[in-house]
């Protein structure tokens, strides 16, 4: 077998039931065909979950922490870690198995992925289930499973401080809060107290294994195949950022929060449980307001030139709260979508969610759904355990979040998400239960750009996902990008002479044509799709909530615009045929799978 460059070909394999720790080989072929991150995670998941219907909370569901081939190298904006597992959040229209669910991939920035690479691994696989709370301590080859009893029950902010105090600057970590510990299905995994791998229930799987944290300190870097070529590319990439002052400044000056105002103006924002696309009080929570009232400092992930994270300090009714200020997803989902315009209150809700370690996008969807059901008289105060959940209420929202995390009373049902809530409440509430395959939509509303957003949300392999994109080629590109350890926000600076493909050639030595390289993303996307198809997801599941065919926005840009079911059918069929998928079932054709080297899934 020829030598592997730029990666190790090693997966750190930890079984929390047997406490066995070993290094498992990753083949050079898998590294070539799936890169790392989301793609390699998917391949490992496929290899390990041999049968459909596995309970995501089963000890056999692997939780995979995947950096990519860029991780640990100072390539600008290459800090991302993807966490791959079988989703706790999704289910098909018709259950084929008791535990049918899709794959899940959740992506976080920060410093964790690079540190895993420094420790000498291309990924970490955690299987099994501990009987008592533990954390994993990795120092290069030395790996220990340690007791986390004294940390169990700790919020992520406090725990982060404890870890900094105990381990210091050489160590990076990611962890769960009470959300994950209590196995709230939409629990997230957090690092640096604010960066989240939020979606698809990765924190719930971690909690179900009684794993509080992974703490890593490494000292290595793998040898590259074409070192000089890499240095030249690195230089060009740095120059590309340096020369685009305006492009870089967009991220530094506000990050995604800039989109709060532009999206509201464009009528593309999730407002009032997706009933509207424009937030009338947007100036209360936009970047200007945040810069004046909340934001204190800009923060960057490892080797990133964009610093889109804004650390804030909110004062006022909720006391001094130091936390990551609102960005587009958080500001919209627990702001505009709930008609909350109290910026300090909004910051408090964001803090509470991150401290518990629960997905803010989903929380915004759940609270919005409950507020609407209450307003429509489908549920009453008694149903809500006396919590006066009304549009715009910060206090009631926080109370409900406490209930969800503790799984108390109404919180137990609400912890299952809007699909389960609508099923329980009935009365036609499923029309405004905003999810695809059980996964709540993100902060980009649908009606104003119906074709684009319906394909984006409807065809995403982890259930509704705003980062999926609407054309097969962009979806494939994003799947590839998520597999490098690269950040999608910086994608535009990796073109032509700084193309990802060239970096991969320099790092791994594998020379590929553009066409061959493009196939990587398509291969990953189709393997994910086949995993889902095997679980029983088909064309019936690529569907949108009824709201988007019935309720046109009543004001703002896009007012009165609605797509019809036949529009959607036509768009999805065009998409399937572009993909080479069967129009009736949505299954990738055998021919397509063979072409992608996925013969083993046919």
């Amino acid at each position, binding site marked *: 077998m020829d030598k592997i460059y730029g990666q190790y070909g090693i997966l750190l394999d930890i079984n929390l039931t047997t406490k066995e720790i070993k290094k498992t080989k990753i083949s050079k072929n898998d590294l070539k065909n799936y890169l790392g991150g989301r793609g390699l995670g998917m391949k490992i998941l496929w290899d390990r979950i041999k049968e459909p219907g596995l309970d995501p909370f089963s000890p056999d569901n692997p939780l995979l922490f995947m950096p990519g081939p860029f991780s640990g*190298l*100072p390539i*600008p904006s290459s800090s991302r870690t993807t966490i791959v597992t079988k989703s706790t959040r999704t289910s098909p229209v018709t259950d084929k198995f008791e535990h049918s669910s899709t794959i899940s991939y959740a992506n976080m920035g920060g*410093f964790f992925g690079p540190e895993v690479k*420094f420790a000498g691994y291309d990924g970490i696989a955690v299987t099994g289930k501990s009987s008592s709370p533990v954390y994993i301590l990795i120092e290069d080859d030395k790996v220990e499973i340690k007791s986390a009893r004294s940390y169990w029950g700790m919020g992520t*902010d406090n725990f*982060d*401080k404890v870890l*900094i105090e105990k381990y210091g*600057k*050489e160590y990076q970590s990611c962890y769960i809060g009470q959300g994950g510990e209590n196995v709230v299905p939409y629990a997230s995994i957090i690092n*640096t*107290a*604010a960066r989240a791998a939020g979606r698809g229930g990765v924190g719930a799987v971690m909690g179900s294994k009684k794993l509080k944290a992974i703490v890593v300190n490494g*000292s*290595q*870097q793998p040898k*590259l195949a074409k*070192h*000089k070529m890499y*240095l030249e590319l690195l230089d060009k990439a*740095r120059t590309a*950022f*340096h020369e685009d002052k305006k492009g*870089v400044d967009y991220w530094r000056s506000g990050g995604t929060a800039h989109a709060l105002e532009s999206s509201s103006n464009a009528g593309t924002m999730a407002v009032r449980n997706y009933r509207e696309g424009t937030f009338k009080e947007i100036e209360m929570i936009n970047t200007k307001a945040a810069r004046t009232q909340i934001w*204190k*400092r*800009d*923060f*960057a*992930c*490892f*080797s*990133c*030139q964009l*610093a889109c994270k804004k*650390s804030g*300090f909110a*004062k006022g009714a909720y006391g*001094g709260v*130091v936390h990551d200020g609102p960005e587009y997803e958080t500001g919209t989902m627990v702001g505009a979508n709930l008609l909350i315009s109290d910026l300090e209150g909004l910051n408090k809700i964001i803090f509470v969610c991150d401290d518990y370690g629960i997905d803010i996008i989903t929380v915004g969807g759940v609270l919005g759904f409950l507020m609407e059901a209450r307003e429509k008289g489908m549920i009453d105060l008694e149903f809500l355990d006396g919590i006066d959940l009304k549009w715009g209420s910060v206090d009631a929202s926080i109370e409900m979040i406490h209930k969800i995390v503790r799984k108390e009373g109404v919180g137990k049902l609400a912890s299952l998400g809007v699909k389960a809530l609508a099923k329980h409440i009935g009365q036609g509430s499923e029309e405004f239960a905003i999810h695809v395959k059980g996964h709540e939509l993100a902060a980009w509303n649908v009606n104003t750009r119906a074709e684009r957003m319906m394909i984006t949300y409807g065809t995403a392999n982890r259930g509704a996902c705003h980062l999926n994109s609407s054309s097969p080629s962009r979806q494939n590109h994003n799947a590839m990008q998520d597999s490098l350890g690269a950040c999608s926000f910086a994608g535009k600076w990796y073109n032509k002479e700084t193309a990802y493909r060239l970096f991969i050639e320099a790092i791994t030595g594998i020379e590929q044509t553009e066409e061959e390289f493009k196939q990587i993303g398509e291969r990953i996307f189709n393997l994910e799709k086949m995993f889902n198809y095997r679980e029983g997801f088909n064309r019936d599941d690529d569907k949108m909530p009824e709201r988007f065919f019935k309720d046109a926005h009543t004001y703002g840009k896009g007012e009165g615009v609605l797509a019809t079911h036949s529009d959607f059918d036509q768009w999805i069929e065009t998409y399937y045929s572009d993909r080479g998928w069967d129009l009736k079932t949505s299954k990738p054709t055998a021919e397509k799978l063979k072409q992608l080297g996925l013969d083993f899934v046919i």
Partner: protein
Amino acid sequence: MTHKETSRRDFLKKLAIGGGGVVILGKYHFLFGNEPKNGILKAIVVDFDKCTGCRTCETVCSAFHHPIEINGELLNGLGNPKLGNIQVYHYNPDVDIPSVCANCPDTPCVNACPVIPDPLTGHKAIYRDEVTQAIRTNHSVCISCGSCSRACENERTGIIKMNPVTQHPEHICDHCGGDPQCVKHCPYGALSFREVDINKTYFGLSPEEIAEELFERYYSGEEVING
């Protein structure tokens, strides 16, 4: 952490107004009138308002100081950030503190070195280079006692650490021979190479001490004059 450092800063300010001389006060021990004769002392100075904690400085420092040979050509290394002479400390609440050799005029590290100076050069195992004015080490005479590291830890930034394998001091900034890579590559313009000024607010302070000041500055509303 305590607030004792505020009083230290005040002390330093008073000191600057009062002029030179020898002052011994526990940790706050400065020797004046002992500046090098050849040219001015320079060091990497951090603007903590601009630092975002991206650690680019660590990687470019490491890449420059740990080159690798490829086909007979010496090229920059991969930039393992752990090997950078500059080191960025992250805290919660969010502040990031790049810590780097302050090139102290009174050299507590050199003073602490027990090695007998070379009769020709006057150099101990740790010394100030006459040409670059940077602090350098000579491992061939180093006895691995750790005195320099302890002096730095007790009196200044604490950046000098003993390498656990070689048992020699490391993380001492050599200014890359006059064109510091960290300054050149910092994407945020947070670093500059300028004359050492002991009166600056954060001169010679440890990352913990600076973090404490920045917590107050950013997250309590109390204004502090920046260095």
